[in-house]
């Protein structure tokens, strides 16, 4: 009974007793979730348009951030570096389409999936060769990103919000908004949506598949860059990040592989969920359950709602 | 070529009885109150215009679909819902309109796979694939070779079925079904997309199966000529309802049937 008490009563008592901590945890979870969501967003963009399950999304985040910082280290002014990084991400997208996707066109999914592993390995090695393997500090203030924290009392304690986190949330929201508009309003955006449904439809809009692939991979690259900056600013720019990026997978399971809003919501659920779990239930298990909690949630989902929260239902016919 | 006398003799008691079966997907009604029976040793044809619910009927019979209402009695035992593997264990084999072969495996392995239920040697023996396990393999290989010989596909014995022309793949699929030594064999358009020669071969095989092994056969077919030659009795479905159930010649003259088919692009070719 004691254990049941520990599991089902204590945590909530704690929440009630120290609402400030609760809010703090929720906020941290929210921010983490936003970043997961951004990575997941990258996955979704590519999966929607090219049906490729892009395992390299995580490393693309690291790579983008590394490039930015690395260039700046070489004495390139921050915003020029930012511009250059964007160019690099475009070149990456272009290269991927030319050297990987095109030769592998109409191969089975697993093959394309494996190919993105190849890309991952390449980027890891390449990134390290060029910029070195050791962690770097994000050039936050050079990019005029706020630092420091806002603290306010209340809730029987005080809650502190890192300004960078707030910025992250805002930027993320803006980016999602922009993407949404891009998909809904612009011709290319509509083409991309069409591709998701049928390739013929896309061609009818007058855009070749190759172009579309380049575009989505580029878009994913930009998202990755933004993510990298945010994440880098919060902690540091290092390759360990790519493992964390795998968290985007459970996010996708929740959100569904093809749904942008799904990615956002899923990200938030996972982010907040795992923070709460870690903070209130983690100690019971000796802590560190963050590392797998997300996946277990996903697992649960898989068994009961395989198509995710927003994904289209996949039905099998005989 | 087959004396009618022997046919009548072959017709035995009821093997499978379908009573008032209804099936619907969401709002769509696939089958409504269909009843008919299949008797031991006969070749039973199920015909009807596209979307008449023929395939759904087969899927109900071998457990892919669970009917919302109705009774199905197989070998005297009533059952409403069962999984396909249970149907297989019960002695129902099936081929598909659009092939369902194991493309990565050779003709031999595909047909051997059909013996899955007949092979019983335990996991341990499989590990060393020696003694009993090997003896079992050999014994079943022998049976399979008889089927291969029967279907005249010896030449493609060791070819991965993925590489075979369509007609041959159909044969291999039939072979896999035969390997199960079924009491009831369901054939879903066994001659779809075949040229005349292939059709003739396939008809011959179906007849020989029915005669040599006395297997009861229920088949869906569009080619009326084929149906008339092969089948002993014909069920006609239209929009999920049974509109006729009689001997081929009577069905041919049945006005409901003709009406049902007149609306059809490919009419009765008799």
């Amino acid at each position, binding site marked *: 009974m004691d254990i049941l008490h520990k599991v089902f009563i204590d945590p909530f008592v704690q929440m009630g007793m120290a609402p400030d901590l609760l809010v703090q945890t929720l906020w941290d979870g929210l921010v983490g979730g936003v970043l997961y969501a951004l990575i997941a967003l990258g996955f979704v963009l590519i999966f929607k348009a090219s049906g490729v399950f892009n395992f390299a999304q995580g490393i693309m985040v690291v790579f983008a951030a590394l490039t930015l910082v690395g260039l700046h280290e070489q004495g390139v002014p921050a915003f020029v570096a930012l511009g250059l990084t964007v160019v690099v991400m475009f070149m990456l997208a272009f290269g991927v389409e030319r050297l990987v996707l095109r030769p592998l066109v109409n191969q089975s999914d697993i093959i394309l999936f494996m190919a993105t592993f190849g890309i991952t390995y390449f980027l890891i090695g390449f990134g390290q060769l060029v910029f070195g393997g050791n962690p770097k500090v994000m050039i936050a203030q050079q990019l005029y990103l706020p630092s420091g924290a806002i603290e306010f009392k209340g809730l029987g304690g005080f809650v502190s919000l890192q300004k960078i986190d707030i910025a992250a949330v805002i930027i993320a929201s803006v980016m999602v908004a922009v993407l949404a508009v891009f998909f809904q309003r612009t011709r290319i955006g509509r083409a991309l949506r069409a591709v998701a449904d049928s390739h013929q439809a896309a061609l009818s809009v007058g855009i070749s598949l190759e172009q579309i692939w380049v575009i989505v991979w580029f878009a994913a690259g930009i998202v990755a860059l933004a993510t990298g900056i945010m994440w880098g600013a919060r902690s540091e720019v290092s390759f360990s990040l790519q493992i964390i990026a795998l968290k985007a997978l459970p996010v996708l399971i929740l959100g569904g592989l093809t749904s942008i809003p799904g990615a956002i919501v899923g990200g938030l659920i996972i982010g907040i969920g795992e923070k709460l779990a870690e903070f209130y239930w983690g100690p019971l298990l000796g802590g560190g359950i963050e590392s797998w909690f997300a996946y277990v949630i996903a697992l649960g989902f898989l068994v009961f709602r395989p198509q995710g929260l927003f994904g289209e239902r996949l039905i099998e016919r005989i | 070529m087959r004396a009618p006398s022997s046919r009548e003799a072959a017709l035995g008691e009821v093997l499978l009885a379908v009573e008032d079966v209804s099936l619907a997907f969401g709002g769509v009604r696939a089958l409504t109150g269909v009843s008919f029976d299949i008797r031991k040793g006969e070749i039973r044809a199920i015909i009807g215009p596209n979307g008449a619910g023929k395939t759904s009927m087969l899927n109900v019979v071998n457990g892919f679909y669970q009917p919302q209402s109705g009774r199905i009695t197989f070998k005297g035992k009533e059952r409403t819902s069962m999984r396909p593997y249970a149907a297989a264990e019960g002695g129902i084999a099936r081929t598909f309109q659009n092939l369902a072969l194991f493309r990565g495996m050779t003709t031999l392995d595909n047909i051997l796979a059909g013996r899955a239920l007949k092979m019983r040697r335990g996991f341990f023996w499989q590990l060393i694939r020696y003694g009993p396990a090997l003896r079992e393999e050999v014994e079943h*290989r022998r049976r399979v*070779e008889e089927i291969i010989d029967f279907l005249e596909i*010896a*030449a493609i014995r060791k070819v991965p079925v993925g590489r075979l022309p369509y007609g041959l793949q159909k044969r291999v699929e039939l072979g896999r079904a035969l390997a199960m030594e079924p009491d009831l064999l369901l054939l879903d358009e066994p001659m779809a997309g075949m040229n005349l020669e292939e059709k003739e071969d396939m008809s011959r095989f179906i007849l020989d199966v029915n005669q040599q092994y006395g297997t009861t056969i229920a088949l869906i077919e569009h080619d009326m000529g084929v149906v008339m030659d092969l089948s002993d009795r014909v069920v006609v479905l239209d929009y999920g309802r049974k509109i006729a159930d009689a001997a081929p010649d009577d069905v041919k003259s049945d006005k409901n049937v003709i009406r049902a088919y007149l609306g059809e692009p490919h009419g009765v070719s008799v």
Partner: protein
Amino acid sequence: MQSVDLGLDTLPKLLIHNAGAIGGRSAMRHKDLGIWQAWTWVQMLEEVRAFSIGLAERGLKRGDKFTIIGSNRPRLYWAMCAGQALGAVPVPVYADAVADEMAFVLAHAEVMLAVVQDQEQVDKIIAVSDRLPHLGQVIYDEPRGLKDYDHSRLIAFEDVQGLGRKKLASDPECLQLWQAGVAAAKGSDLSVILYTSGTTGRAKGVMLTYENTIVSARNANAFDHLDQNEEVIAYLPLAWVGDYIFSYVQSYVAGYCVNCPEAPDTVVQDRREIGTTYAFAPPRVYENILTLTTVRMADAGALKRKVFDFFIAVAGRWGQKILDGEKVPLRARLLYGIGNLLVYGPLMNQFGLSRVRVAYTAGEAIGPEIFRFWRGIGLNLKQLYGQTEASVYVTAQPDGEIYSDTVGKASPDVEVKISDSGEVLYRSPGVFAGYYKDPGKTAEVLTPDGWVHTGDAGFFDPKSGQLKIIDRAKDVGRLSDGTVFAPKYIENKLKFYPNIREAVAVGASRDFVCAMINIDLTSVGSWAERNNVVYGSYQELAANPQVYDMIARHIDEVNRSLAEEEVMAGAQIRRFLILHKELDPDDGELTRTQKLRRGHIIDRYGPLVEAFYNGAATAEISTEVTFEDGHKGVIAARLAIRDMQAYPARAAKLERAA
């Protein structure tokens, strides 16, 4: 040499003897249900005995004739021996014979009983059964499709064996009786009647005694040192004396194993699996394999092709010498060695010939380059000359004395002489006992003192001392101006070109020689593909002008070579056409052994022959043809006729320069 030791003077006796002496060895194999089902001599004796006694149960008696119809299956061979054990006489019939032809033979031989392979043959027999008053039982091997047939006269092979086994089990005397019956038979007894689809007229039933066949077989085995370790593949027609001797008698005598292929079209594959050591085939077979090789190699990569051609050239240059054990320069030996590793070995292996010790070709002249090719890559290919009336062997080439244009020296125990008219005659223990129910014909062929008229014109080649066959004696005619005209000789020269499958030379008592050509669909077809010539049918391809040009080139070469032999120089080909259909045994144009029936063809295509000599540029022809399923139809066509240039004798070389 050897004569029959009286103990073993019949085939059933040999079977029993082998079962005792080498009982554990494989006697027969059959590729069936995916593997080689094998029978040892002991097992085979049991099978044969059971069937034999079953036959007796079914009323087969000494002296009865019974027929065997089907492809090479162990059970059909057993049936022969089983019948012979009862003193009955097997009369094998060509499985691809049309019902009518079959009816004639069966009626003429008064067969009481038939052992057939499958439904197809049963149907044929049923179709003509009203013409076969004597025929009773029909025993079938494969039950497939016969389930609903009226079984009052039909019975399955294993059921007959069942009868036999039951009898054996129930009645203790039965076995002794059977063995006594076997022992009672003598070497001089009639053992088999083989109907030769003679090149003219109706088939004649050649009667052979046990002695005939067994002595020939003994001598042949001794001649080529064949023993129980040989592996042969039985794929030639059962009804043909060649198969009877090679796949049956010689096997019983030597004790070697006979392998039956899975199906006629898997012979090459099956031969490869078995790896035969003793091979026999008409020239056509070696020719086809070679054609197949060239066709397949045409699709190979450039480099591979170069290598291949180079080493084949090496083989052509040195191979035969090496095979005949002559002295050759070391470099040649080395090259040949490499070639053997890279090309010859693998090639022989692909065709399952790498273990062959002796391979024979007979029945027709073989193309020199075909002959050279095979010997070049190390196949010990030899020629023999034989006849049904002689239990095959008349002459054969001893090892080391091989020539592409001779048929060898007189076989052991055989005397050969040339009559004044130039016809080849022979006398031997193998000489047949006469034509069944046809003393007249027998007298024509068989002289009182035992010499047989072969009907072939030939002479002994002075340099090699071996026999050379020019042509059928009666076919050697003369043109109106009296020059010698040996159609076969010319036809062979033509047929040596892979593109030409058959050729018919006409000209007897005419002013000049003309030729009707059958193109070879395999090689011309692949040529057409390579040069993207589109064609829908044989007829279309045959009418194609480009094909005509190609054939014209070949004929031109033939004319040149004819011009260089003064005897033949006058008989050059002046006009030719390509036939619109392939010559076919079903239309009586070829014999079952694929020999031309020239006379018949010339009648059949009379209009074409006329057109040859009235100078027309084209000719109308419509011929009745028989399709596989037996029903008849008519093919009509308008054929182009080409004129050819003739070269003055000996001046050919100059001409070529000009």
